[in-house]
């Protein structure tokens, strides 16, 4: 929604499930009008256009307000799950202050612990950075295909493919010097992920198979194939029956930056990758063509661009980044492949890219933020006993409010705009 005067600016009454047939005078953005008149030549182009517009067009103020809203709703969850608060709810009518103060202190404590755990010191900052490394990469793996109007749900499978290949090169090759082995293992991870991103790309370009379906299927395939590999003697750690691989050779380990802290040199890789991707998307012909294909595939084709090539390249590049994320996790952090080592990083990447509004800078910032939430959440769980799952709830709420700017404006109506007009009454519909 790039038009600031668009429909989202209107005052909207609180939702009601049966408020249909809403009859409101409309000032529609030119973009929207065009869309309606253009025949839907490419069946998937309509929703995808909207998708990209929605992701890239949110204002910073809305993002900040979305944060505030998410924190408030999150606090409700913390409070309601706390025994003491629920007890004081029992006599809420008699002494409402008890419940409210209990709720306040419990959630304030949890949020304070979350904050301290994210940025409270060198160790905490290192943990935040460690968590942010793969998140930024998988976030970019979603953001890049988004430019071409594609939705990469396959980050998870690409992370697994990259991690498994990088790990295999890491433990199967022995006797190599560090300067050869580590780059080789990292490259293997990138290539593994790229191959896994190439598959849905070529399938979409050649047969029109929707990338959302194929990447979901490839995710599941990657999980089971990894389980299988970890049950073979070539991969499995000697003397173990559970799915865990041999240990990566010391010559293929991404070294730590500071002694005693988990932060590893994958951080440098991420910085380099982010700069390169920014240049690719914003300054190169490739980025221009990718965006053109995403905005209007027919116009791009008419201008002589190959949509198929962009589809394949976009998803392959995405896979390469997700593969690097998997490689960095194995070589820098875990040093052994385990079942489920990816831990939902690919899916986290979707939320990171959405919060980053599809831009490189935004994705990096969102990755750091979610890394901080992850690291802080862990220490919050230890300090106040609030479940780490709260972080997932917070992430979802943040994106929810970011994705629905109209909702945020409706909640903060007094600040965003003047007093409500007569439309409020009309909005309840027939």
């Amino acid at each position, binding site marked *: 929604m790039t038009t600031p005067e668009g429909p989202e600016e209107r005052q909207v009454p609180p939702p009601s499930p049966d408020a249909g*047939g*809403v009859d409101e005078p*409309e000032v529609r953005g030119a973009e929207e009008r065009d869309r309606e008149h253009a025949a839907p030549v490419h069946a998937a182009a309509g929703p995808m256009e909207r998708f990209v517009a*929605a992701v890239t067009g949110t204002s910073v103020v809305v993002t900040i307000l979305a944060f505030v809203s998410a924190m408030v709703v999150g606090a409700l969850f913390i409070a309601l799950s706390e025994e003491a608060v629920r007890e004081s709810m029992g006599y809420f009518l008699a002494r409402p202050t008890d419940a409210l103060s209990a709720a306040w202190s419990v959630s304030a404590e949890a949020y304070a612990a979350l904050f301290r755990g994210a940025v409270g010191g060198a160790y905490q900052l290192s943990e935040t950075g460690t968590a942010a490394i793969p998140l930024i990469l998988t976030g970019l793996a979603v953001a890049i295909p988004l430019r071409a109007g594609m939705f990469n749900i396959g980050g998870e499978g690409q992370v697994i493919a990259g991690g498994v290949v990088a790990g295999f090169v890491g433990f199967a090759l022995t006797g190599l010097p560090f300067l050869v082995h580590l780059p080789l293992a990292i490259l293997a991870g990138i290539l593994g992920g790229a191959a896994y991103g190439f598959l849905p790309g070529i399938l979409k370009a050649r047969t029109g198979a929707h990338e959302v*379906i194929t990447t979901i*299927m490839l995710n599941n395939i990657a999980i089971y194939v990894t389980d299988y590999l970890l049950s073979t003697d070539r991969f499995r750690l000697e003397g173990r029956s559970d799915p865990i691989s041999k240990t990566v050779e010391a010559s293929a380990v991404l070294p730590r930056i500071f002694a005693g802290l988990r932060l590893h040199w994958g951080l440098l890789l991420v910085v380099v990758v982010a700069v390169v991707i920014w240049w690719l998307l914003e300054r190169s012909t490739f980025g221009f063509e990718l965006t053109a294909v995403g905005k209007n595939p027919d116009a791009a084709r008419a201008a002589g661009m190959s949509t198929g090539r962009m589809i394949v390249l976009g998803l392959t590049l995405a896979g390469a980044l997700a593969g690097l994320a998997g490689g960095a996790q194995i070589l820098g952090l875990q040093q052994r492949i385990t079942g489920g080592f990816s831990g939902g990083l690919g899916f986290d990447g979707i939320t990171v890219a959405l919060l980053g509004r599809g831009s490189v800078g935004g994705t990096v910032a969102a990755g750091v933020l979610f890394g901080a939430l992850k690291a802080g959440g862990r220490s919050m769980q230890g300090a106040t006993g609030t479940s780490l799952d709260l972080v997932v*709830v917070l992430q*979802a709420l943040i994106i929810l409010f970011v994705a629905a700017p*109209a909702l945020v404006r409706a909640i903060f109506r007094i600040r965003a705009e003047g007093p409500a007009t007569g439309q409020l009454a009309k909005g309840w519909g027939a």
Partner: protein
Amino acid sequence: MTTATPPDLDRRNRRFGIFAILLAAIAGAVFATGTAGLATTFQLNDVFGEPAYATLPALVVPVAPTALFLALVIAGVGLYQAVRGFGDRATVVISILLGLFVLAFLVWAARGQQLQVLALLRGTMRAAVPLALGALSGVLCERAGVINIAIEGQFLAAAFTAALVSSATGSPWLGLVGGILAGGLVGALLAVLSIRYRADQIVVGVVLIVLATGVTSFLTSQLLVPNPGLNAPDRFGAVTVPVLGDIPLIGPLLFRHSVTVYLMLLAVVVVQIALFRTRWGLRLRAVGEHPKAADTVGIRVLATRYRAVILGGMVAGIGGAYFTLDAAGQFSREMSGGRGFIALAAMLVGRYSPAGALGAALIFGFADALSTSLQILNVGIPSTLLLTAPYVVTILVVAGLVGRLRMPAADGQPYVKE
């Protein structure tokens, strides 16, 4: 459905035909050789359930001749397809050939042993319950023009609520109601955000999945784990339909299930008829295809969409309740394990039709049940690799056989009245 031009069609025909001949080659080379003298026994009775009135004799077939025969049939039909082509019926023909291939595989896999055919088919029915209901949810929403990829979230919310309510009240029926309401609530969130606030529907879908995952996991560790009594739901037992349940093979297959299976079949029939044979369905589809035209003739576009999306959420809620009230008997975090996404694929493979969705759900369910059967048979193929089969098949189907889907024309586009 496809708008393939003649040369396109020729290529497609050839591709299908070559695919079939390849299948035949595999069947002939792998399944028919090295198994001389061995036979496979197909057990057609429910040996695990209560004894039936009448029993069927076990079917014993020789492995090599059967596999060879099936391979020849597949090759013959495939050859015809490559040369002449079956035209519009090609997809159906290929599906049948794939079925024959699977049959040949089963004959080979169970060589010298007994295959519990009925257990396999009953497992298929059960595994299809959440998939078909989830796909139905998708059909209802998308036919009305709202993309629903939040099925996984509807499953989780419903499974959690059903477990909680059933544990607290001791009644699986109330649990089911709770699950339906929870699914409807997620549907309502999707509806409000995508219809009123016009947020992007795919983003909202993803977010609702993450939100449902987070909330149910959070409440599980904060609420259910400290109070195990809240996570011990009363489950639905098997209900045998009188008379029909005593028919051999058909009885145990269709009429000796828990309530969720019957509800799933009922829902598919009702939605199929309602969508394509009633005024309500016509209006719903009109809203999804051309909302402006629908509006012009006086159909309330937004109200129709709200109702469809919330109803869809409630249908998915039944599927979610299946996890805790039927399959598992307790809630565990992320227990739907990606089946919401498989349901999404089933909807697409079934081409936005309830009957097609059921068919696709049965195929995925069969693959699910088959992997269990094969683990028991100990075939020599690692079970983890066999588990990839449904996903590989889906990719092949989506890439090769279904091709470009025709979505409802206004799918994913918010409607703004002028």
